[in-house]
């Protein structure tokens, strides 16, 4: 394992450094997307939304079998039921969210210019609960994941077009970008080492997915979890895997990371909720 990681770390330097070059977000995105388009030249742009399944026929075949009747359908149904259940005060989520919550999942995360921070749909769900006298839901799995699955499903096929409206937003974007390229943990690796430089390579039997399209299929049913999980649940898991201390779900760090990553996948159609190993 150590030899494998040493190789990965050495190869990683060049790509990681070039990603940190100062440029505006649009240029960053073009460079980011072109890198993957060149590296995986036979992959159709929209197929990047399918992660490893866009680059590995053997696992794609298994994924297609599971997509015949994917386990996340249970969560979508549960999410719809939860979403349509009124609060104790008689109001519902639809009264808080834009367009009643339908077809808006792909417009998140957003930079809230008044609050000067990145806001996620999960936070909007809990803000709605709070405003109506209900306790907040936990952010990694369970009911929140089911509600997000239902909301994500209504955005399927809609193209991501995350905006960076002002300087404060760009600062949050840069913060997320820095996180992405920074080494962390005992294994001293950055997200970019695995998902940019070593995308398409293997760590033992795991094929590393390209970062382009990473965020589009969340929340996700993972066979490993035996259930649904949110993007921030996955971030925490990845950080733990390089023996780095994970941040809390919906922490500033993870929200800014989500902002950067989702922006990098602008142009890709939302395909949540998803199923992965």
């Amino acid at each position, binding site marked *: 394992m150590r030899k494998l990681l040493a190789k990965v770390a050495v190869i990683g330097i060049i790509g990681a450094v070039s990603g940190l070059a100062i440029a505006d977000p649009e240029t960053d995105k073009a460079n980011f997307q072109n890198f993957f388009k060149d590296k995986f030249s036979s992959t159709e742009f929209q197929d990047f939304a399918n992660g490893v399944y866009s680059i590995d026929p053997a696992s794609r075949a298994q994924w297609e079998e599971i997509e015949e*009747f*994917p386990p996340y359908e*249970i969560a979508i149904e549960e999410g719809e039921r939860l979403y349509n259940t009124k609060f104790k005060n008689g109001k519902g989520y639809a009264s808080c969210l834009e367009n009643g919550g339908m077809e808006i999942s792909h417009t998140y995360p957003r930079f809230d210019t008044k609050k000067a921070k990145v806001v996620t749909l999960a936070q909007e769900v809990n803000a709605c609960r709070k405003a109506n006298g209900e306790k907040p839901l936990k952010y990694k799995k369970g009911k929140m994941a089911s509600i997000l699955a239902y909301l994500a499903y209504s955005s399927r096929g809609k193209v991501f077009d995350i905006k960076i409206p002002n300087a404060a937003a760009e600062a949050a974007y840069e913060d997320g970008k820095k996180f992405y390229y920074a080494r962390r943990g005992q294994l001293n690796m950055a997200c970019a080492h695995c998902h940019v430089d070593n995308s398409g390579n293997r760590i033992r039997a795991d094929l590393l997915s390209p970062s382009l399209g990473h965020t589009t299929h969340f929340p996700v049913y993972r066979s490993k979890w035996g259930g649904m999980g949110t993007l921030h649940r996955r971030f925490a898991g990845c950080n733990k895997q390089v023996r780095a201390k994970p941040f809390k779900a919906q922490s500033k760090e993870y929200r800014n990371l989500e902002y950067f990553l989702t922006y990098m996948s602008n142009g890709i159609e939302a395909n949540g909720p998803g199923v992965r190993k």
Partner: protein
Amino acid sequence: MAKNSIKIKAKNKGEKTEVKALIKHNMETGLRKNKKTGEKIPPHFIQEVKCEHNGSVVFTANWGIAVSKNPYLSFKFTGGNKGDTITVSWVDNKGKTDSNSTKVK
């Protein structure tokens, strides 16, 4: 009873009716240990799934602990028409049951 655990898709394709079912159930093997207490989590899995076409049993699944969590099954049969009723029911080793029906599309 709890909200329904069974989702069914029944579609006619030419002469055949294709039935797919997805069931929400932990399918606990009894081999896992509670990480905190170290005690074995008792087995809790679906043993039998009965599938009926217009009230007659057409297919039965006998399951053990090695069927995946949130289990799936699919089968095909002849003689099904659009609008016919497909019913799927299960019984687990604790005696819990659930049942759901759908119409063939």
